[in-house]
Structures are given as C-alpha cells and as structure tokens.
C-alpha cells in the first residue's frame, strides 16, 4: 500500500505490496497443507479423500503466489489510487465498536455507534449529533425488524424499554 507507484511510467521496480500479496497467498496455501495433512490418510476407494481437493487448491495457490512474485518483479501490477487511511480507520473502528458492544448494550446502541463512526469517516465528525441520531434510527430499525419481522436482534437496556 505504498503511495501508488505507477509502474508504467517509472522505472520498473519490484512492487513491494504485490510481494506481500504473494506471501499472503503462500501462507494461505501453507495453512491449508498444514491443516488438511492430518486428513491425508483417509481415502475412499475412489482414491480421493477429504484432503485431496484442499491439496490441489493449496498447490494452485502456491503457483499463483509464484506468478504474483513474477508480475511484481516485472512491475505488471496496475497503478493504485492514493488511499486516505483516516476514514478507513473510522469505519473499521465503528465496526469493531459494534462487534464489542452488541451483546452488552444491545443492537441500537452498538449499531448507532457504527452509524456515527461511518458518518465520521465520510466527513460528518459531530459525534454528539450523529451518535444520538444513529441510536434513534437503529431503535426504529430494531422495532421494525425484531418486532414485525421477528428477526433475532440482540436487545439491550434501550430495547427493553420498548419490548
């Protein structure tokens, strides 16, 4: 995720981010090999057991990793647009906050936090304003979906006031 080196115009340098992708693919392949190797003994009379296909997939992933390295070294990866990470962190933080507060605080408060954090990621930083709006909106959504459509959305202190 370096700042968008443009391989076509600059001299072709190895693309570090693409190399990281190759490592990720190889690691994924390794993980599959490691996990399914204990199943390798189980084969049916077809000669193909629960480990066969994972082995094939992992092998292809290794090949793709090698191919990625090759393209990274040649600088064949497309140019990337510059990414601003502030907004990304806001949204990821919002999702994490929702995940952690969902059980103790219930759907409306947890998702209200996510709502406000996402709005913040897109430039609306007035949290004192967006959090209450998000919570009220999510409470409305909760009443419709948990109440009318009987979806099992976790209830917290706020929801218990209504239901």
């Amino acid at each position, binding site marked *: 995720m370096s700042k968008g080196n443009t391989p076509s115009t600059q001299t072709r340098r190895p693309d570090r981010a693409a190399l990281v992708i190759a490592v990720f693919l190889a690691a994924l392949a390794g993980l599959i090999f490691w996990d*399914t190797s204990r199943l390798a003994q189980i084969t049916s009379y077809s000669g193909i057991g629960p480990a066969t296909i994972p082995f094939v997939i992992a092998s292809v*992933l290794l090949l*793709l990793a090698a191919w990625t390295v090759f393209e990274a070294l040649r600088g064949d990866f497309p140019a990337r647009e510059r990414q601003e990470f502030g907004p990304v962190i806001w949204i990821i933080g919002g*999702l*994490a906050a929702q*995940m952690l507060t969902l059980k103790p605080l219930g759907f409306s408060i947890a998702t209200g936090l996510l*709502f406000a954090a996402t709005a913040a990621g897109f430039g609306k930083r007035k949290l004192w304003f967006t959090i209450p709006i998000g919570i009220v909106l999510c409470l409305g959504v909760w009443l419709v979906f948990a109440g009318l459509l009987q979806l*099992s959305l*976790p209830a917290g202190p706020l929801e218990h006031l209504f239901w």
Partner: protein
Amino acid sequence: MTTFDFLLQGMLVAAQPMNLLYALIGVTLGTAVGVLPGIGPALTVALLLPVTYRLDPGGSLIMFAGIYYGGMYGGSTTSILLNTPGESASIVTALEGNKMARKGRGGPALATAAIGSFVAGLIATLGLAFIAPFVVKLALVFGPREYFALMVLAFVTVSSAFGDSTLRGLTSLFIGFALAIIGIDQLTGQARMSFGVPDLLDGIEVTTLAVAMFAIGESLYIAAQGEQGPDKVEAVKGSVWMTAQDWARSWKAWLRGTAIGFPIGAMPAGGAEIGTFLSYATEKRLSKHPEEFGHGAIEGVAGPEAANNASAAGTLVPLLTLGLPTTATAAIMLAGFQQYGLQPGPLLFATNPQLVWGLIASLLIANFMLLVLNLPLVGLWVKLLTIPKPWLYAGILLFATLGTIGANPSVFELGMLLAFGVLGYAMRIFGYPIAPVVVGLILGPLAEQQLRRALAISQGDVTVLFTSPVAAVLLVIAAAALIVPLILRARGRGQVLSQLAANED
C-alpha cells in the same frame, strides 16, 4: 403438461394476494436500494436477503424475484442521472443516458430505459419459461462428470476470461475456494480448516462474505478516496414522455438488445455484462444517427438497457435448471434458496414445480409492477440519489450488519464480516475482482462433490472426466477460455477484455 400449463399454474400461485403484496414490497425495496449510488444488483440482493428470512420459501423467493428485477431497474436510473454506474452493466447506459440527461432529455432516457427493461424482461422471462424445461431434460442426463466440467467452465469464465488480468481473476477464485474448504466435508464428515472453532464448522455464509466484500469493502474504498465534492445529479427537466421519434428509434433497439442479452445470460458461463457492450456496438453500427453517439443517442440507452435486463433474466436459466450461478447476484440468490434447504436444479422442477413456476410467474408480475411504479415515481427515486454520502454509507453499513446479526447474532460472525470487509477493500485497491470469490465459495463445494462422485463411480480413474463427449467439449471450451485471453493480453490486446469485465457490486 406443457410449459404453458405450468406457467398458468405459476400465475395462480403468484397472483394470490399475499404473494402479490410480497412482489410489490420486493420491487419497491429493490428499486429503492438499487437506485442508491454505488449499489448494484448483487449488493441489493445481499442487503435485502434478511428481509425475507422469516417468510415461507414461496413468499420469500417471490419477494426476492421482485428485489432482483427492482435492483436492475434502480441501477439504470442512477447511471442516467448521476453518471456513477452502480455496476459495470450500467456503464454503457451512463455513456449515452447521462449525456441525454445533461441535454435536458433525462425524462425520455429514463422512459426508454424503463420500457426497454420491461420489454426485455417480458420476452426474456417468457424465454426462461420455455427454455427451462428443455435444459432440465438435458440436465437430467448429465452425470457428475458433466456437471463438474460445466462448473469448471463457469469458474474460468467468471474469473479469468474477462477482466484485465488472468492472474488476479484466478487468485480471487482460489481465495474463494480456500474459504469454501472451511467446515465439515460433506462426504466424510471430517472438519477441515476449522481449527477447533465451532463457529467455523458450518462453513462461511455466502451472504456474510458477499455483504462484507461488496458493502463494507466498497464503503471503505469510497471513504478512502477522501472528499471529492458531491456528485452532480441531473434534474429531470421537461417531459418524461417519449416523442414519436423516440419510440421509432427505440423499439428496434429494445428487441435487438433482448436478442443479444438473453442468450449470453442464459449460457452456463459468466460475464453477463458482455451483452450490454455488444448491444451498444450493434446500435452504433446500425443507427441512422451515428453522429449522435457519444452525445446522447437514445438507441444507446434503449439497446444496452434491454440487453442488461434480458441477460439478468437469462442468468436464471442456468441458476434454476442447473443450480449454476454465473454472476455474484445469482450466487447470492442461490444462497437464498439454500437457506430453505432448496437446491436449484433439474430436481427442483420435479419436486417443487409450484415453487419454481410461481417464481417465474412472479418475475413477469414484478416486471409489470416496475413499469407502473417506475415512471410516475421517478421524482422519489431522484430524491434518494441526493442523500449525502455520510448518511448514505452509514445507512448501508447499518443494513449490512443488520443482515448478518439477524442471521447469526454472534460476535464471531461480525468479526468475519469485518475481516472480509477489509479483504474486499484490499482487493479493490489492487484491482482484484470480487465476484469470483463469491462464486468460488458457493460453487467450489458443489464442484468438489461432483468430482468426487465422478471419481467414485470410476473407482479413481481420472481419465473418466474426459471420456464423456459432453464433458470433454465443455473442458476444451474452458481451456480455450483460459488460454485465449492470456495470449490476447500478452499481445497487448487486453483492453477489450478489461472493458468486458464482470465487475458488479
């Protein structure tokens, strides 16, 4: 019984008041969500899946049909008025449609798109109804090896035949396969890749993955572009009605678009968006006003929009008759079937004809509803387009997580949603296509099952995969679809292919 009788029976199912209501809710929600900028049909269907969770299978699928068609309609409104197509299938529509809107002819552009979508949807859905029984008969003689070969073909066309890189398409597909291994092996009951985590034994939910990659990945990506100022929404000035000349120029384009789009969608191979490009090129060549192309030619809206809708109906042919999803949207619809334990395919036509024909009939009804709903309500849809981005994406994430929580209110599931969302974001940065991951996840296990069945029948003899003529031909086509684009790209002729990329989100 003939197709006609079946269709009539389906009409009786679909015309029940409750089912009509479900269809109406479906088309309204589908259009409303589909019209939001940045949301294509795949995401529309994934986001609205939870709404249908508590309905009976019939009602749920009917609502689903409405959502699917509504989402397609909504997308065209966005691309005409906003010039930021929610899906690549609408790029072509935006090309001419947005130009028309800027010239103050937004009304006729929307009208020709809506009526063209209606005509195409009508013909293509009837086509689906009449072709499906034949494909079902054909599919019944298919054994495991033919199915396996068919799936290999779909894998190749979905991942690497189009788009700008074979490597990245295949990588996406195999990431999908790797995720598909997770869970209990269907044939031996062994847990694979679950690392003792009970939540992983059931495997990864297709809807969780699709919502994460499309909704969260896209939101992160858009947010990371920073402030770019508001998109300009073209106001619909003047009459929404088409003049006699507009009609004269549109109707042939609708029919040609349908004739191009439906067969392409119906083929058991991916890349349903190609139809829109082919239709655009055809119209440009046949038009009596070629000089208007690029400046708002109405044929350039009418043809591709019809092709788009016709191929959307076409993708239902392999989905319903073979259980083979060839687009991300179809993959999510397959997940919608599976939540009721229904596996689309030839058997479903035999065991549950009421459901299948009710679904097809309700597609026809949804199509009528959309025509009636769309033109008068266009002002309302335009309002939806002007929602400021912070509220829009906050709302999208609210509903994206709502679906996951509604299906499985666990912290672990939300963690997966977050992880796949980040994965989707990273893949977007580096230009990896998203659809192959989703198709790989849902189709991978089915392909493995068919392969292992085929090899069990042959007692482990691999050559059996190539000795059936049907399977051999399909595998040869698949190999060609993999190798020919590689050669084209190596020779620098890849631009054409990347324009045809199936990049729906």
